[in-house]
């Protein structure tokens, strides 16, 4: 079956005064129909650039150097603006981090929800009925009253529900959620994640969930891609990633989460060092400088994606079946 989203060998470059910045390099990812895939990584790992590349929203100085992006069999790269416009907000839609930037502050909720259905040949009252039904579905109380309100009259959690309702009105094949809960309190985060899960179940759409919150990823997603400095370093089922992480970065990232440390500790683990400069990409493994297990081949040779188990891959030299005899650990600058 055709995957909902298929990305292969995607590389993106930004022209800067210091040279070409390469925020995404050789990224491959697949979202199957009806699947919820999580992308996890820290700031600067390329999560948002990936979203922009998929949506065709790269800034003027950015371009796709190579690779392909296909939405349910339709190749998105090379499509003209008109063709892309027909797909965005119809076959795929996005829920952004801050609902206040999604919603127009000077229009009532109802008006915005009708406007977004401009593609549908429906009467105004039919559009309104769809909006009402969708608001009820995403758990907005008193939907009829909300439709008459302006965005600033709603609380943060309600606004995000409205933003999700608007994205879902298009009945998209793919919903991309970019840190949709970051601006919300923990009790609301859980409510939104529950909502996304229910919507997926009831509509059958696929969801790409971008977050740095490991707990929410574990709760919501079936499979996970871990990004570091513009590359996907590990991919697998949610259990592979959280129970059997193979890449040293994934392991360290999990170790750092205070939620996973059972007893109280005065000394929390960290990942010393900084993300490498993405203008002058080092030739070897991108994580070498911060990796506690880096050894001889790491600085000079790029590790290929290797199969750890069925559906679980990681890019690390440690996974090579036989290590060369002269291999010595050079890592851990911490």
């Amino acid at each position, binding site marked *: 079956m055709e995957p909902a989203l298929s990305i292969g060998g995607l590389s993106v470059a930004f022209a800067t005064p210091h040279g070409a910045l390469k925020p995404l390099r050789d990224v491959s990812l697949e979202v199957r129909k009806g699947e919820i895939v999580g992308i996890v990584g820290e700031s600067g790992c390329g999560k948002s650039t990936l979203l922009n590349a998929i949506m065709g929203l790269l800034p003027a100085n950015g371009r796709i150097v190579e690779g392909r992006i296909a939405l349910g069999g339709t190749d998105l790269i090379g499509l003209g603006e008109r063709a892309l416009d027909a797909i965005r907000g119809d076959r795929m839609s996005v829920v952004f981090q801050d609902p206040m930037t999604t919603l127009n502050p000077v229009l009532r909720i109802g008006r915005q929800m009708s406007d977004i259905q401009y593609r549908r040949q429906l009467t105004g009252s039919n559009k309104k009925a769809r909006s009402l039904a969708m608001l009820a579905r995403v758990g907005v109380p008193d939907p009829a009253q909300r439709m008459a309100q302006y965005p600033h009259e709603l609380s943060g959690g309600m606004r995000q529900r409205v933003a999700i309702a608007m994205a879902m009105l298009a009945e998209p094949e793919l919903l991309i959620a970019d840190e949709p809960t970051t601006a919300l309190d923990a009790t609301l985060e859980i409510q939104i994640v529950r909502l996304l899960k229910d919507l997926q179940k009831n509509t059958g759409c696929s969801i790409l969930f971008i977050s*740095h919150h490991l707990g929410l990823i574990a*709760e919501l997603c079936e499979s996970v891609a871990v990004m570091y400095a513009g590359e996907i370093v590990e991919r697998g089922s949610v259990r592979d990633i*959280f129970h059997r992480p193979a890449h040293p970065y994934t392991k360290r990232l999990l170790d*750092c989460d*205070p939620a996973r440390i059972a007893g109280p500790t*005065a*000394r929390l683990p960290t990942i010393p060092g900084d993300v490498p400069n993405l203008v002058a990409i080092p030739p070897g493994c991108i994580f070498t400088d911060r990796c506690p297990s880096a050894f001889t081949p790491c600085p000079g040779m790029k590790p290929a994606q290797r199969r750890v188990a069925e559906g679980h891959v990681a890019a690390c030299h440690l996974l090579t079946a036989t290590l060369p005899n002269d291999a010595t650990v050079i890592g851990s600058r911490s």
Partner: protein
Amino acid sequence: MTPLLSVRDLKVRYPVRGALAAALTGEGTHIEAVSGVSFSIARGETLALVGESGSGKTTVARTIAGLVKAHSGSVLFEGEELTRLGAGALKAVRRQMAIIFQDPVGSLSPRLRVGSILAEPFLVHGLGITPAKIDRLLDLVGLPKEMAERYPHQLSGGQARRINVARAIALEPKLLIADEPTAGLDVSVQGEVLNLLNELRERLGISMLIITHNLHVVRHISGRMAIMYLGRIVESGPTLRLFAQPRHPYTAALLSASPRPDPDDLPQRLEIVGEIPSLFRRPSGCEFHTRCPFAREKCRFEPPAATAPASGEFFTCHFPLNAIQDDGRARP
């Protein structure tokens, strides 16, 4: 021994509309953001104030630091009443307490180099400043001397946080107030900042008030915690006790809303519905009853009194979680 800081029945009000508008809308001229909060912090102790946005935790911190005026109640710092101090006397007390604001970059002047930013507290209080003092501060927070030449926009999030900590400890305060010290930081950097605060407490014996909504952070940094809801503390006690056995359903809900990153160990969810109510329309009775999964008739009318199951612990709930479970009866 008297505690370093003692807050008693603190109330803070913000004006929201004029008398005429209040009469027309039938709503008050003020909202009470902090509504009778009491707690104390011993020397060398860390207390965490936890709550959702709008719970009043930041207002409490700002009132202690004298940035917001208290409506009533008392704030005793080393036995001195702060709420009635004039500007001059308050300035002297402020040498003893420092605050780390929520936005690490926004609270550093963009036009000053780090060195000048760190010199500022000394200048404000008319104290001498030498380059060696700046170097020592940078060293205390684990940054190289060269950092003094940088401007705030040249710092990473974690570095900006460290500079805020360095500025806060410049005058060797007795109390450090940190408002969401790890908000917006990546997990790998978050640990650095918490380790730094823990280390400073050990080395300099500073007491701390940590304001946060991240419960997992609390567990690793503070011995005691207080949970705030709508401007009141609904439960407080030793951190580990509250984690092991929350009595107030709101505490339990906050705990279960912070999932452990493990797909096979999803917590038994205590789900609460809706969002924090508006301060304009405080619910009657127990103010949490509109969201509480266990609310009964009594909760809607009768505000619960504080119950102290042990010294240094209290909660305000008619039907505390464990009391009922201990009876062997199922929750309603």
